[in-house]
C-alpha cells in the first residue's frame, strides 16, 4: 500500500513537543527522561541539515537551550574570557575580547557558514557537534569546557577541551552533558596553569593590549614575547564552504625569533580535531627560519590523522594541513616583519 503523508497529517514524530527548561539541570533531567527520543536544540542549524538530509530523524522531543538564562553572554575577567555556549557565531566573530585573546577562534567563527547562518548558529552547537570548525581553534587556545553533566556526581564540572576530544575519539563522551560555556585563558599557559600566576615568571608578566589586537608578555629577564596566532580553513570553494581541512596555530615569539608555548591543531570536515604534539615539540624553543617550514609541513602531514570521503582522500587532507600550517607561519612572520 502506498501511503502519502501531507504535512498536516504526518505522524506525531514530525510534530515534536518543544520543551522550555529554565535551567541546565532541567535540560539534563528532560534528556534523561526521554533519552534518544529527545535532542537539545541551540541554534538548530546543524540539526536541520541532519533532519532534512535524513542523517537523523526529527525527534519526538526538542529541548530548547535558549530558554536558559545567561548562556548567551561573553564575559571578560582578569585572566579568562568565558563564552556562553549559546553565544552566536556572529557574536563571537565580532567580539573585541575574542579578537584580542582568542584570535584563532575569532577568525574561525568568521569563516563558518555564511552571515545569515551565523546569526542563528551557536559556538556551543559547533563544539558539541564534535566536528565543528571552531574545534582546532579551541585546542590552540587551551580552552576548557564548562558542563552540567548528568553522569558526573557533582553535575557541574570543567574539562580541558583536549581531554573531551579524547573522550569523543574513544566513544566515551557523556550523552547527558549540556555545555554551558567555553573558557579561555588570556595569556600563555604552561603545564595547565596561567603563566601570570606561575612562579618562574613572577610579577613582571603582563599581557598588553595594543590597538591592532596583538598580545605581548614580558618574561622575568625582561624579554618581550609577541603572540603569533592564526586559523586557516580550506574548502572546495572560496567562501561559504564546508571545510576539507582546518588548522590553527598559536605560539609566542621573542624579539630574537625564538618560539615558545607552541600549540598546533588540525581538523576539518567530519574528522575529529587534534593537537599535533610532535609539531609542537619540533617548534618549541626553535628560532624562526624559513628553511624549516617544509619540515613542519611534512611532520604535520604525517601526524594528522584524517579520513577519505568522495570529496578528498586522507593523504590530500594531511598534505593540505601541513601546507596550510607552514604557509600560515610564513605569512604571520612576514606580517610581523612588515609591521602589521
Amino acid at each position, binding site marked *: 500500500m502506498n501511503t502519502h503523508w501531507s*504535512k498536516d497529517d504526518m505522524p506525531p514524530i514530525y*510534530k*515534536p*513537543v*518543544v*520543551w*522550555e527548561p529554565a535551567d541546565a539541570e532541567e535540560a539534563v533531567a528532560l534528556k534523561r527522561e526521554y533519552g534518544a527520543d529527545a535532542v537539545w536544540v541551540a*541554534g*538548530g*542549524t546543524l540539526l*536541520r*541539515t541532519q533532519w*532534512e*538530509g535524513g542523517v537523523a530523524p*526529527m525527534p519526538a522531543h*526538542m529541548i*530548547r537551550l*535558549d530558554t536558559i538564562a545567561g548562556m548567551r553572554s561573553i564575559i571578560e575577567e582578569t585572566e579568562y574570557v568565558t563564552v556562553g555556549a549559546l553565544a552566536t557565531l556572529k557574536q563571537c566573530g565580532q567580539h573585541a575580547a575574542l579578537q584580542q585573546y582568542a584570535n584563532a577562534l575569532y577568525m574561525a567563527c568568521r569563516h563558518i*557558514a*555564511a*552571515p*545569515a*547562518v551565523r*546569526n*542563528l548558529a551557536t559556538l556551543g552547537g559547533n563544539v558539541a557537534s564534535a566536528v565543528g570548525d571552531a574545534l582546532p581553534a579551541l585546542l590552540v587556545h587551551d580552552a576548557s569546557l564548562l558542563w552540567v553533566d548528568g553522569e558526573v556526581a557533582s553535575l557541574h564540572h570543567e574539562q580541558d577541551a583536549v581531554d573531551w576530544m579524547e573522550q569523543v575519539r574513544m566513544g566515551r563522551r557523556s550523552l547527558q552533558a549540556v555545555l554551558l560555556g567555553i573558557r579561555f585563558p588570556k595569556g600563555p599557559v604552561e603545564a595547565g596553569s596561567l603563566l601570570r600566576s606561575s612562579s618562574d615568571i613572577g610579577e613582571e608578566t603582563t599581557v598588553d593590549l595594543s590597538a591592532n589586537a596583538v598580545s605581548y608578555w614580558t618574561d622575568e629577564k625582561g624579554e618581550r614575547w609577541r603572540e603569533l596566532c592564526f586559523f586557516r580553513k580550506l574548502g572546495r570553494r572560496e*567562501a*561559504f564552504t564546508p571545510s576539507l581541512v582546518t588548522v590553527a596555530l598559536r605560539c609566542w615569539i621573542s624579539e630574537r625569533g625564538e618560539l615558545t608555548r607552541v600549540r598546533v591543531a588540525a581538523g576539518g570536515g567530519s574528522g575529529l580535531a587534534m593537537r599535533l604534539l610532535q609539531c609542537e615539540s619540533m617548534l618549541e624553543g626553535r628560532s624562526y627560519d624559513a628553511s624549516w617550514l617544509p619540515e613542519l609541513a611534512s611532520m604535520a602531514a604525517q601526524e594528522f590523522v584524517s579520513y577519505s570521503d568522495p570529496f578528498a582522500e586522507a593523504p590530500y587532507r594531511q598534505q593540505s594541513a601541513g601546507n596550510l600550517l607552514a604557509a600560515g607561519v610564513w605569512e604571520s612572520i612576514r606580517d610581523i616583519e612588515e609591521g602589521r
Partner: protein
Amino acid sequence: MNRASMNWNATINGKERELEVEPSRRLLDVLRTDLELTGTKVSCEIGRCGACMVLIDGEPVNSCLTMAYQCQGKDITTIEGLHGDKPAELHPIQEAFLEEGGFQCGYCTPGMIISTKALLDRNEQPDEHTIKEALCGNLCRCTGYGGIMRAVESAAVKCKTRTEEPSVAE
C-alpha cells in the same frame, strides 16, 4: 514547560500577525503556506542557497533554518515588505537589480535583495570584498554574479542618494 502548539505572533512587513502553529514549524512554511507570502522562495531547505532569506529584527536569516519559536514576537521583513517611497513603487535595490540585469530566471532574486538590504542598512558604501562576504550565502545559478555585483553597487548609490535628498515635505 512544554508545547505541542503555540499561539505564535510576529510583526510581518509592519503588520501584527497571530497564528496557532507547532513551535517547530519552519518560518519558511509559516510564510509561504500559512500566510501565502510566496515571494520568499524555497530551494535547498538546508541553509545553503539563500532563496528563503528574510530579515528578523533587521538581520538576515534563512527562514528554512528558523523554527516558529525562534522568531516569536520578532519583527520580520520579507521581499513583499520592500517598496519605494510609496507602496506601489519599487525599492531602490529592486530598481537596481532591474536596471543592471541582476537576475535572469529571478528565483534567487528575493533572497539576494533581502541580503543586500541587510548589507546596505549597516554599510552605505560597501567595497567589493564586503559585498561578496554579505552575499556569500546566496547562490545564483543563472547570472554568473556579474550583474548582481553591479546591481548591489548601483543600489548602494541609489540608497545613499535617497537618504541625502531632502524629502518633498521639507
